[in-house]
């Protein structure tokens, strides 16, 4: 009877077989619906979107830059009418394709040149600007992929902070024999020092120095002249500059970006080098650097708010007449020149870096270089590209008005008349370009140095406690 406790109100005449059949049909439909997107992407014939098959966090290659759309193939988008000068005749005709993970600014000079490479080797070159550029972001995005035995590209423009980790973990392919001696001979002493520490590990080459540059020390020659002082040559000179700069011009003696995320580490390692210190050992030189920075902040010769500054703010401070000197990257020149109303040559004069106590004038070289992920499927082609690119002729071609201009003999000669060329030449002749120290797990070490420095500068720790904490964490 309907509606009783024994029988449910709804009644169906479906048999058990029919019910199971219906369940099976629904489940199959649901499974097909879920699998369809994966099937469609697997059947896709477009190689450029094939990178979505990776499990990493990089996602699809960025296509926000319209010029990149034409740069994805070595045979399109470029004029193609000139060959790259001085190409090596030993390049093999391998054919195939490589993808280079690179930022847009660094990609642009290469896009113009790769047609010549493709013509000689038959290797098509694509570019992927979707891969993170900052070393810290590269670690975050690429560690899971590399650990899973995958790689989003065949060549990667890897930063200093990421390369040692990748090499130590065995995720990079060495290419010692691929680079011609002419490429190494082209490096200045400072670059050679840098390459030995940051591009070679256990006697093998893992990275070709690419967009490498020294940290530059800039000064307002106009302000220095008005104050009747020479450019600071030592830390004491910077301290002496503080009072007159503040009184007469309401300017800081020195500004820099010392926020967490690499900026604080860059600054303190620069200062530590000038005091003959090793920033990872928290030795006397490093402690002197800590004290120097603290002294400048206490006297208001250096802004305390720089603890939260990236280069955006420090450059803005310099370009808005808030400081007499600044430590900056080479792009400050370009940014300053973009402020046409403000810019004059003597407002952005490159000075030799100052010397710290018991130290010498010093700055360090750093930047990015090309590595080959071990999981690359075109290792031979990638090596061929590096062998071609490393030659002086190619470096001169890429270095013209781009961030590929590094202190190499060929580039220094070719670009001697540019502001950056003159700066590099001065730094090379003064022998101030060094390599900063490297250590195991450099990523962690940099983070510890930054945290300890900021703890000290904000008064959360004394110098002794800071040194103790730093040494304890880094062993």
């Amino acid at each position, binding site marked *: 009877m309907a509606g009783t406790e024994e029988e*449910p109100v709804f009644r169906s005449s479906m048999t058990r077989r029919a019910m199971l059949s219906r369940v099976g049909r629904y489940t199959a439909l649901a499974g097909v619906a879920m699998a369809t997107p994966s099937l469609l992407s697997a059947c896709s014939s477009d190689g450029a979107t094939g990178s979505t098959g990776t499990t990493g966090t990089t996602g699809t290659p960025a296509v926000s830059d319209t010029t990149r759309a034409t740069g994805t193939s070595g045979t399109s988008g470029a004029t193609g009418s000139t060959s790259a000068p001085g190409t090596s005749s030993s390049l093999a005709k391998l054919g195939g394709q490589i993808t280079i993970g690179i930022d847009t600014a660094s990609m642009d000079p290469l896009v113009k040149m790769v047609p010549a490479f493709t013509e000689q080797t038959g290797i098509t070159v694509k570019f992927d600007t979707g891969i993170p550029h900052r070393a810290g972001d590269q*670690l975050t995005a690429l560690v899971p992929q*590399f650990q899973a035995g995958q790689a989003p590209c065949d060549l990667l423009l890897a930063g200093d902070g990421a390369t040692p980790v990748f090499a130590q*973990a065995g995720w990079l392919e060495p290419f010692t024999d691929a680079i011609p001696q002419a490429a190494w001979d082209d490096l200045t002493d400072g670059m050679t020092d840098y390459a030995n520490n940051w591009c070679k590990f256990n006697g093998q080459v893992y990275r070709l120095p690419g967009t490498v540059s020294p940290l530059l020390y800039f000064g307002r020659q106009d302000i220095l002249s008005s104050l009747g002082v020479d450019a600071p040559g030592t830390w004491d000179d910077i301290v002496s500059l503080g009072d007159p700069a503040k009184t007469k011009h309401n300017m800081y003696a020195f500004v820099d970006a010392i926020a967490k995320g690499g900026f604080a580490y860059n600054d303190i390692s620069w200062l530590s080098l000038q005091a003959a210190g090793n920033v990872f050992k928290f030795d006397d030189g490093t402690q002197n650097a800590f004290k120097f920075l603290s002294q400048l902040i206490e006297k208001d010769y250096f802004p305390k*708010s720089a*603890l*939260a500054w990236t280069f955006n703010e420090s450059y803005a401070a310099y370009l808005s007449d808030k400081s007499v000197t600044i430590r900056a990257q080479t792009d400050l020149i370009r940014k300053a020149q973009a402020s046409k109303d403000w810019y004059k040559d003597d407002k952005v004069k490159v000075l030799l870096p100052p010397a710290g106590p018991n130290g010498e004038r010093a700055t360090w070289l750093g930047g990015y270089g090309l590595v080959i992920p071990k999981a690359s499927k075109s290792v031979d082609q990638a090596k061929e590209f590096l062998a071609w690119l490393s030659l002086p002729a190619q470096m001169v071609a890429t270095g013209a008005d781009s961030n590929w201009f590094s202190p190499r003999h060929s580039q220094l000669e070719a670009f001697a008349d540019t502001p950056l060329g003159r700066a590099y030449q001065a730094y090379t002749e003064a022998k101030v370009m060094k390599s900063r120290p490297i250590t195991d797990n450099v990523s962690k070490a940099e983070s510890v140095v930054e945290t300890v420095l900021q703890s000290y500068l904000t008064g959360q720790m004394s110098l002794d406690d800071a040194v103790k904490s730093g040494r304890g964490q880094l062993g």
Partner: protein
Amino acid sequence: MRKARVRQMRYRRTRRWLIPAALIAPVVLLRGVTAVWPLVESGRLSLYRSGPISGPDKYIGLSNYTKLFADPTFTESLRFTLIFALVSTCIQLVLGIATASLIASSRRAAAVLRPLALVVWAIPVVVVGIAFRFGIEPNFGMIADIVRRLTGVDVDWLTGSVSAQIAVIGTNVWRGMPFVAIIMTAARQSVPVEYYEAAKVDGASVWQTFRMITFPAILPTVSSVAILVTIIQMSTFDLILAMTGGGPASSTEVLGFTAYRIGFVNLDFGEASAVGMVLFGLVAAAGLIGIVVQRIADRKAG
């Protein structure tokens, strides 16, 4: 005959749950793979020394946990996570309820506040973090400039440990309050109008009306939202990354950021997993408290 009837009964009972179960099975499976398995794997990894440059994984028991709780940076991060979540939640609830009351009581206020709340809520957290970082910078920031002109006070928010914590909490409140306000508005509007009319007739003041009618009526919603928002805020990561990077030093680190730093900067996956499990424990505890509070509230209402 009787056996056939019993069989038919059992078959119908089975059918009642089998079809729905079969239909939701794919989703449950997907959720299991994407949420439950990573949780179990994190728990397992937290018992190992693991990392890309630390050699093969090695079982070390609870060493990661003892190391964490002996590390002042971690305990500070744990303390700030709780402060960040609880203080943000309290302020958001107060402001959210106040905003909801305003929206409910005035059409003009509703016309302005409701779309404003939606716009603020829609802004990505990273954008909020970066915007406030620039905005409160004393040399260049617009917010700092306005505050200086109005009050004469010049604060360098992000260079002191306490001030940076206040700045981060304040930004979080600004960003999260609209969500609470929108939910509270819906709860407020479900209170019968007759109650307010009766209160008006009885001569109740605004505060009395709120205390005796509005708040008791929306209390179940308040408790649910409080737990939900607390849990969400315990897992904050993006705001900290964008605004302070955990600095100055490590004073604004929360557990989510600490896990990221240990995992992707220090490259210690085992220890990072341990941080993740501690965070999971906190969130689970908050959820359990929410369930208990809800049950007590239901019992009182029933």
